């Protein structure tokens, strides 16, 4: 068997057009789930019982169900549900099925990543000794000031390795967006491949694209970590 190099070149160009969609999905999901995950982590460490229980339930729900199933659910059930609400409850004539499917993708990936990040942030916040919070209060800082100036910056550094993992996992899982007819890298490759039955070539191409993207993400995280964790280094002479 020989690889169709000409086809691979063409596929590379056409799938590259999907990179912005893949990265866009990743970034939007991160932008939503970073603060959401952070506040859920705070909620879990706080002392409100109901909030704690709700968050735990949500996290175990996300963890206990395959993302593919969540996609099937959101993509087939949510539109009908929304349609019902819009038509029968709100009495509007707006067509729910015109919603760009990418919004469903935003929803699923944020929903998933927020759960992962809430755990990441929770364990990261726990790595900062409680004594520093007390010291901050004792010098006259407010609780919010202590969080913003002392606790969170350290927790973020502690969270970076897991944050990197979560981002890479998110980037990879956006390849499932094709199930919602979103035209990301994987979706375009599948379309091209189907046309001439060049599956192997098409998949090899996006294989390489994903590796490059994920490696770049990891390098960015390593660089950030080495900049931000300067205070941890001992001076070695």
């Amino acid at each position, binding site marked *: 068997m020989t690889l169709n190099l000409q086809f691979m070149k063409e596929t590379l160009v056409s799938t590259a057009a999907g990179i912005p969609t893949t990265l866009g999905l990743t970034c939007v999901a991160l932008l939503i789930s970073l603060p959401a995950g952070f506040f859920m982590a705070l909620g879990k460490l706080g002392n409100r019982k109901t909030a704690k229980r709700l968050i735990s339930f949500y996290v175990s729900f996300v963890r206990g169900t395959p993302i593919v199933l969540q996609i099937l659910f959101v993509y087939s059930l949510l539109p009908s549900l929304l349609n019902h609400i819009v038509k029968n409850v709100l009495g509007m004539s707006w067509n729910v099925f015109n919603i760009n499917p990418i919004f469903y993708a935003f929803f699923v990936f944020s929903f998933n990543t927020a759960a992962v990040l809430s755990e990441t942030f929770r364990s990261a916040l726990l790595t900062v000794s409680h004594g520093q919070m007390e010291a901050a*209060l004792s010098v006259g800082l407010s609780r919010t000031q202590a969080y913003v100036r002392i606790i969170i910056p350290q927790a973020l550094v502690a969270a970076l390795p897991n944050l990197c993992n979560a981002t890479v996992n998110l980037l990879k899982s956006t390849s499932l967006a094709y199930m919602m007819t979103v035209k990301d890298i994987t979706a375009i490759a599948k379309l091209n491949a189907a046309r001439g039955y060049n599956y192997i070539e098409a998949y090899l191409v996006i294989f390489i694209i994903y590796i490059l993207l994920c490696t770049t993400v990891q390098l960015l995280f390593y660089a950030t970590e080495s900049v931000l964790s300067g205070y941890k280094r001992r001076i070695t002479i």
Partner: protein
Amino acid sequence: MLQVKNVHKSFGSNEILKGVSLEVKKGDIVVILGPSGSGKTTLLRCIDFLERADQGSILFDGIETDMHSASKANIARLRKKMGFVFQNYNLFANRTAFGNVMEGLAIARKIPKAEAEARAREVLDQVGLSDRRDYYPSQLSGGQQQRVGIARAIAPRPDVILFDEPTSALDPELVGEVLNVMKSLARSGSTMVVVTHEMQFARDVATKVIFMDGGVVVEEGTPKEVFSHPKEARTVQFLRNIMPGEFDYSI
């Protein structure tokens, strides 16, 4: 200047403080002694509101505040009159020595930057760490970290500084440098409440010694009274244990 009255504190069903009262006058060096678990740390933490007392009141400059029901604003106001030096230093790991001192000045008290920086340099100088200003806590020895802890506590010129066993986490050879800083603070007229097991420090520096056991003040007086003529059997027992050989009194 500072008076704490009838402090009670329980953890669960375990009553740790059973009505402790304490008076501190300006310039006093009050040393609190007592066996492990007697509630010394808990008392200091209640005074600085790091722990919420179940009952008790704190009288600062004539204003009395109920310790159990104190509002956020009152707590913030009272905390700014006090400094706290922790057993484990609790330095901000993401701030340099200088940055640690600056938080209480520029951020908590909104002192103008130039003035705050001058004061931060001054106190770091006072604890002998001018040359370590830009070091992070991870780059300092235990003794140096605790001196930064002291600098951070004294920088805003609090009315009273609370010390919770400031030397007990230190290697023996580093204890001296911290005690020296505390002695010079005492000489310069600071008001201090010190929980410590350093008997020599208590004898030399204290203006008042308080012996606590089982959540109550058992005995208090001048160092001379408490060390040379203790009245209570529990005090004698404690002093015997902590200074064997040196202390052979019977009542």
